[in-house]
């Protein structure tokens, strides 16, 4: 149970960071932290009953392998999304010369 609590705290730290920080890069970093919280949550769900990993030469009852299989996919998707976000951030900083989300929003409201 303590692991689930830790995971929720990590998730919350990420969420607060997204609201609090103005710089886009820091917002993305907070998103990454939040995703780490979810990964931690899934791994602790898998180990709720039994802790032994589901590998052939260990003897059972194993930890549930499905949450881990699920989270691998999520990590890959998170990696893809994060790379795309970083490319966008790089292009914005090249074209606009700023990473402040407040300033970008003000400019887009004026021009569009």
């Amino acid at each position, binding site marked *: 149970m303590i692991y689930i609590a830790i995971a929720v705290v990590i998730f919350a730290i990420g969420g607060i960071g*997204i609201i609090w920080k103005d710089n*886009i890069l820091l917002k993305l970093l907070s*998103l990454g932290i939040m*995703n780490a919280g979810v990964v931690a949550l899934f791994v602790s769900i898998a180990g709720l009953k039994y802790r032994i990993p589901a590998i052939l030469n260990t003897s059972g009852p194993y930890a549930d392998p499905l949450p881990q299989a*699920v989270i691998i996919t999520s990590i890959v998707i998170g990696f*893809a*999304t994060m790379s*795309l976000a970083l490319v966008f951030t790089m292009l914005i900083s090249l074209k606009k010369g700023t990473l402040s989300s*407040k300033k970008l929003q003000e400019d887009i409201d004026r021009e569009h």
Partner: protein
Amino acid sequence: MSIDIQIYPSLLTLVPMLFAPLFLLFRTKLVQKLLASLIIILDLLIIYRLTLIMPLDEYTGGWILRGIHLRFDNLSLIYTLLFVTVIGTSWLSSFKKNYPPLFYFLTSILLSTLNTSAITLDLFNIYVMLELSSIIAYILIAMKDNWKHLWASLKYLMISYFAFTMYLTAVGLIYMHTGTLDISRITGEIPPIIVSMLIVPLLLKSGVFPVSMWLPAAHSLAPTEVSAILSGSFVKMGSIVIFRLINTPILKQAYTPITLIALLSALTGVILAYNESNVKRILAFHTISQMGYVLAGGPIYGALHAFNHGIFKSLLFFTVGDQVEETGHYDIKALKHAKFPMHRYIFLVIGVLGISGVPLFSGFISKSMIIHHIPIYGKVVLILASVGTVASMSKLVSIGYRKSSIKLIPHYIIMATIIILVGIRYIEHVISLWTIIESLIVIIVGITIFLVIHPKHIPRILEKLDIMVIEYMLTLITVWAILYM
């Protein structure tokens, strides 16, 4: 000789997905056209064959009860038909412009993910499709390579990544409680907090008011065909998943908060649209409003309205988008100087008649059904929203037309034909003195409002990224509170 091929629902996923890389390999225009038509024809054939034997269940890989559960039924039929039509017509429109092969590659995969979302019953599979289609949408929005597009896309990326992470957490918790990810086999009580964590991301994907303020910037900045694909098919993905969940323990008694949010969205969408001067943003706000109708309508009438909305909203985005690209003006005052050419204006008006719910056009059918089947408080809100729809659509019609040579544009004609055919074919189900009087009153009041009340500029506070996250959290807490009571 008859060819007897076993047809599976998973073919709807596989066909566009397997053909997609060919767009990048063969880059000549002719091959691209052939490939695009091949995908559309094959998809329509598969849908036709599946309708003969539906409802049909499939477990991938033959792992009965353990593989991913796919099902093709009435709901899937309506949605897959919509996705194929919208993406097919967008391709038809895009061949006249200079789109890179990447566009066809991405939209083909998008078609595959949309089809999958219409047939899958697996919560984790839905998560993958939500993420994959969103990633494609980010790239499509940012394709113009301008900082405005990049920022609109990045805002959407961050808010939906935030939301889908929460969706995934909810899926994990549901698995912990029930031991299954298959929607049809979930049993027992699910705690309200998990339900709200699962539902609110889907609402964000559906483009409903408090959670979807990413939508106006993204849909209005994207190129014409991309706007049509996003508003016509992409935002429908959330609604089909919500409809799938309705008869399961997850949403059994919990449809009230969704109806309330949907009604709020239907009304707020048109108010924001009325006070907007950018034509493409007007249409984007209408998507927010119409998605409110869809979710308020429930799985039968809502799905029908989703189909109708997809068709007339794509037609509106085609006509208005082409005009914006031709003149370079987004503002309604600047467009009044340029005016629509005749052949475009006619189809704009058909789209407007569709969305306003005028008899003999498709919007009338589904709107009357939804208004007829909703509780009384919902009726009042939806009729008010219809008045607002007419009022803000009058702004578009008031741009006016100039005489021009007649041109036959195939994708306009296909969409307009569907609007009128659906409108005439199903009119017997809703036609009565009351519905006709109601729609006439709505139109007259709407036009009066347009003539009397002048729009004001509303500041775009709700579209800031940090405010969007707060809106999201507030919606989450509200849904939780309503479910808890």
